């Protein structure tokens, strides 16, 4: 448990003292440790159930407690998988001769530490600090290298992230002022219905987090930042970072939404999510640059996540659980598929030496493997069986039907069709033979293998959805009986 918190922070400090090459070996070792620690924690929770971990030995209202439950450890494990893939890819992909690359590893590890902090966080202010840690590390990664366009994207990202954090903090201030505690469960215990100040606090926090998650129409900062960053960084940002703020929003909603939310808010957030699916997919279809296509696809895929709000508000308990499982699967499958897609896109760009979609002509001969990974990830985004994306959408479909909110079904289906459209556009471009140049660069095999593994994981998620969900379902079932232990 402590290893999970300690390793990323310690590796961040250590790798700052080394240069890129030596930092790479160190980091690969660290990733191995992190994966092992995450796996063992996951098994511990899967067999023994969730628990609270009191940091510094002080119990919750006074100290900070970590909430270690099935959902949290699953995301810890997901982070370990995706971050390791991105880290290994980055170690080969990034050019070690640039002296500023040495700062990649510390930023990478701080990002990881922040992510773990958010998945496990149960204290509202601690979540704020975790969010800031993630945001600043992510901004640093985007700005790394210091070209004008990257700086511009980083500044937009920074300002959006800061505004979102402050809105969240204002909500925390209102909640603390009223309830005198920062522990999320502590607040959930004492909050009643019809508390306008607390309801406004929830609204502010959700708005701030929606800005950080790039919910339509607050998504303007995402495509530049994710499009301009180096591919492994984009994969981290799209796969994991935006999920962190959504995760907090979802946790708040599931704990407090039934008393502080309203049907209007729930449907409104769902509608914005639906708009994001349609608008993001359409924009993805229209982008001239490959990575912009993938970035707008993220805007669309994030939209699905916000269907959580209408599908869990004022519905029967089993329906709500279906929706929660569907959204969780969507988060996991999107993280895997989008990371695969960005890494594959990076390989393609490296190969044709151009970022434009129409420069891809003929690449299907030279880089069939990367292109295949790209397509495989695309299949998961479309939601076709047997991928994880399909399993997620299937659950959401059932939840929509069971709660009588049939209008979301149209969004789910249309979103899949649009995703198919923009993925096939890339395919069409890469099979065109009219390209005069056949000057392609062959990236190392490692670079090609990693997106393939991630895409296969996203695919396989659909096949093993049942056992995965059984662990995910743990927190919501044992929530009443969580044991407070103090190892």
């Amino acid at each position, binding site marked *: 448990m402590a290893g999970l918190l300690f390793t990323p922070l310690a590796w961040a400090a250590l790798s700052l003292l080394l240069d890129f090459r030596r930092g790479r070996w160190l980091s690969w070792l660290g990733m191995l440790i992190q994966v092992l620690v995450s796996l063992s924690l996951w098994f511990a929770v899967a067999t023994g159930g969730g628990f609270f971990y009191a940091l510094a030995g002080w119990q919750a209202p006074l100290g900070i407690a970590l909430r270690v439950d099935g959902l949290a450890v699953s995301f810890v494990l997901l982070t370990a998988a995706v971050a390791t893939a991105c880290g290994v890819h980055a170690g080969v992909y990034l050019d070690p001769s640039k002296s500023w690359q040495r700062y990649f590893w510390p930023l990478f590890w701080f990002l990881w530490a922040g992510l773990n902090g958010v998945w496990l966080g149960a204290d509202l*202010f601690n979540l704020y*600090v975790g969010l*800031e840690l993630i945001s*600043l590390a992510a*901004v*640093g990664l985007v*700005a790394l290298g*210091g*070209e*004008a*366009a990257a*700086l*511009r994207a*980083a*500044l*937009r990202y*920074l*300002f959006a992230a*800061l*505004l979102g954090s*402050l809105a969240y*903090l*204002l909500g*925390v*201030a*209102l909640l*603390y*002022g*009223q309830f*005198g505690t*920062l522990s999320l469960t502590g607040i959930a215990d004492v909050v009643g219905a019809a508390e306008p100040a607390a309801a406004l606090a929830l609204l502010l926090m959700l708005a701030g987090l929606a800005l950080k998650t790039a919910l339509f129409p607050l998504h303007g900062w995402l*495509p*530049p930042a994710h499009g301009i960053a180096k591919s492994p960084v984009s994969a981290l940002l799209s796969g994991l970072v935006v999920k962190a703020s959504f995760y907090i929003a979802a946790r708040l909603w599931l704990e407090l939404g039934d008393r502080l939310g309203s049907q209007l808010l729930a449907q409104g957030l769902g509608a914005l999510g639906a708009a994001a699916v349609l608008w993001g997919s359409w924009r993805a279809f229209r*982008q001239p640059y490959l990575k*912009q296509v993938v970035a707008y696809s993220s805007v669309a895929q994030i939209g699905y996540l916000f269907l959580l709000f209408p599908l869990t508000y004022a519905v029967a308990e089993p329906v709500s659980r279906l929706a929660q499982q569907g959204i969780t699967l969507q988060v996991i499958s999107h993280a895997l598929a989008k990371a695969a897609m960005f890494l594959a896109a990076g390989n393609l760009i490296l190969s044709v030496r151009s970022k434009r979609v129409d420069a891809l002509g003929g690449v299907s001969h030279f880089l069939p493997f990367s292109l295949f990974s790209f397509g495989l990830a695309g299949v998961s985004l479309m939601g076709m069986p047997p991928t994880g994306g399909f399993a997620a959408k299937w659950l959401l479909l059932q939840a929509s039907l069971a709660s009588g909110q049939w209008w979301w079904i149209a969004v789910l289906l249309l979103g899949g069709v649009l995703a198919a459209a923009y993925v096939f556009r890339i395919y069409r471009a890469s099979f065109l033979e009219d390209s005069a140049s056949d000057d392609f660069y062959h990236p190392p095999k490692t670079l090609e293998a990693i997106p393939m593994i991630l895409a296969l994981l996203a695919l396989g998620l659909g096949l093993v959805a049942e056992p995965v969900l059984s662990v995910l379902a743990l927190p919501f079932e044992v929530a009443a009986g969580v044991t407070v232990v103090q190892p």
Partner: protein
Amino acid sequence: MSPDLLYALSGVALCGIGLAGFLLLDHLLRRLLAFNLLGSGVFLVLVGLAQHRGGPDPVPQALVLTGIVVAIAATALAIVLIRRYFHLTGRTSLADAGDGQS
């Protein structure tokens, strides 16, 4: 009404001022000023509201100290980014027509 609550309300007003400035100003440094004003407003609400009943409360005070350090970190990083951006492009704002999608 206690003075603490009065300060919380002035914090709310600062939030309003800061938010308006943040949304309306183009110049990056001015936006940064607005962000800091907004932050100060939030801190005032946090401490003022919490101390309204029970008198001095060290918990929100510690939170604000943490918040101030996070704010200076963000501000300093933003200044470095802004200055380098200005150095490379000669611009002091992000607003320009044309490459909104870039």
